[in-house]
């Protein structure tokens, strides 16, 4: 065959692939947003879910999702950032370092359900945290840690060597150079990575199934005492998050408006993830402009 004809055909096929991709993506987002947004109402967002009646909302699930996310981030960010700093600044090439790198890689590629099973075994049963916000957050910490570690390491590695030398030459200790010069300089890229990972954590479901549970006690949003069993702040109560809720109503829901609830919840979930994404991008841009001194 003429090479020009082959060229034409092949390039057309590639464009077709891209078009198929674009089509799939458009259908996906379109379906969720069009079908889902029509199910979202103030009532939907602020009413508790009902196990068998129509008209239930997602107030508790939405709260749980954010609460688990916040606790997870409180646990992950300090550990993950420290781990990233270790790899970028302290790790000397050798067996131990490459072993730690392998560990990060393994943690990053384990299926989330495996992390969930581990969480159930260790946090829920062994440590006796039961199905709870805290168990869920610990499992998600295991799941999210490698992401933060990588983001931090990349952030540090992209800094110029001159900053570090400047700090050390002034008689700052290595640790203080890191704390006051390198970390602030790497902060924008780390923050962007953290917010992006927050989107991932927010939508995670399989790891929470066996750790945070499939139910939520009747939350009393007037009671902010963390020790009370029905307080929204209680760490040791079970907490069904939004993404687990979508799965649960679809597999075992008996309320008549399953489809509406599922679509609405999915739309809320997707919108939240989109917001995390856009926020991270915008923030990255703003801080970058500020840092460049203009």
């Amino acid at each position: 065959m003429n090479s020009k004809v082959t060229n034409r055909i092949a390039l057309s096929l590639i464009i077709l692939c891209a078009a198929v991709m674009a089509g799939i993506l458009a259908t996906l987002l379109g379906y969720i947003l069009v079908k889902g947004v029509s199910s979202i109402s103030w009532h939907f967002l602020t009413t508790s879910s009902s196990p068998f009646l129509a008209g239930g909302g997602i107030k508790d699930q939405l709260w749980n999702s954010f609460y688990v996310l916040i606790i997870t981030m409180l646990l992950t960010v300090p550990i993950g950032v420290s781990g990233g700093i270790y790899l970028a600044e302290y790790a000397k090439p050798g067996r131990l370092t490459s072993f730690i790198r392998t560990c990060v890689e393994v943690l990053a590629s384990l299926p989330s359900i495996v992390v969930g099973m581990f969480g159930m075994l260790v946090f829920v049963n062994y440590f006796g945290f039961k199905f709870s916000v805290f168990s869920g957050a610990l499992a998600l910490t295991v799941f999210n840690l490698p992401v933060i570690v990588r983001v931090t390491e990349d952030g540090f590695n992209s800094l110029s060597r001159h900053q570090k030398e400047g700090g050390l030459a002034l008689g700052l200790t290595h640790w203080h150079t890191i704390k006051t010069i390198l970390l602030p300089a790497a902060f924008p890229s780390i923050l962007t990575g953290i917010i992006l990972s927050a989107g991932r954590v927010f939508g995670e479901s399989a790891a929470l199934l066996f750790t945070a549970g499939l139910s939520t006690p009747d939350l009393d949003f007037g009671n902010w005492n963390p020790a009370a069993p029905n307080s929204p702040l209680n760490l040791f109560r079970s907490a069904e998050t939004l993404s687990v809720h979508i799965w649960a109503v679809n597999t075992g829901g008996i309320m008549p408006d399953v489809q509406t609830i599922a679509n609405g919840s999915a739309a809320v979930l997707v919108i939240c993830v989109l917001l995390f994404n856009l926020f991270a991008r915008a923030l990255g841009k703003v801080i970058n402009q500020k840092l460049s001194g203009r």
Partner: protein
Amino acid sequence: MKIGKVAMDPATATASKSKLINEKGLFWRLTDRTSESRGKVLIYSSAILMIVAVTAITLFLTIQGLRSFVVDHLNFWTFITGTQWYPDRAQNPSFGAFPFIFGSMAVTFLAALIATPIAIGTAIFMAELAKKWGTKVMQPIIEILVGIPSVVYGLIGLSLIVPFMRVHFGGSGFNLLAGAIVVGIMILPTVASIAADSIRAVPDSLRQASYAIGATKWQTIWRVVIPAAGSSLVTAIVLGMSRAFGEALAVQMVIGNVVTLPKSIFDPSATLTTIITLSMGHTTTGSILNDALWSLGFILLLISYVFIVIIRFLSRRRNA
């Protein structure tokens, strides 16, 4: 910096109690706020925690997963090759996990089969044909899609693909192919974005050399760019496969969850992850069924490790 052969007179060194010589004790080092050691404690313990996490996951799941063979005396070989999964039968319960292993494999490979051409095609489109459009429009959208939660993909499958299957291929519409399509779509953005990165990493000089000898755009892509990006592209696909393999809820929502071996891709079936998701909550700790489920989890972990080893191997070969 290592320092050797310090030709310093020891007498002068000790005589001059200069501030330059560091002879501070452990206590001082840990209490002084400008000290290096306090930071190091924090940093090193985080690094160690990572090792602890991986070791703990592997150990706990292995111990728990081996219980069914050691404590309950199930035969390992019949466990992984048996096709009969009737744990609840009062007489002669049987634990044959092969349908799930097969289901997981089938979903993974079918998903890769569906995703690879579209993802690589898109990657070539973004990185070679429409660079501006690709980086400005496609790339951000694809990155956002990477972050869409898997349950949402499951929900879409449930509301669009399952009804489609029901109408066109009969049955309930819940089947192996539906599961594969859902995961295939789910891994599309991941594979496409990594593939596009690796195509962009191919140096321009190679392309110019190819155009200079009169190659068409397609010949350049097919003969020069793809071979040069080769193992990175394979890594992208394998990464996608490992995600597909580990996915639980999205597959579970559309695959039908039948414990028998499917006869065609239009039969409902089950995977390792779906059977664990479904049954784990209904079993009591210590029962044989519960132990068997942990063994399935252990197999899941083992195969995940296989994927990790393959990916490492591929990326090491690329670096070499």
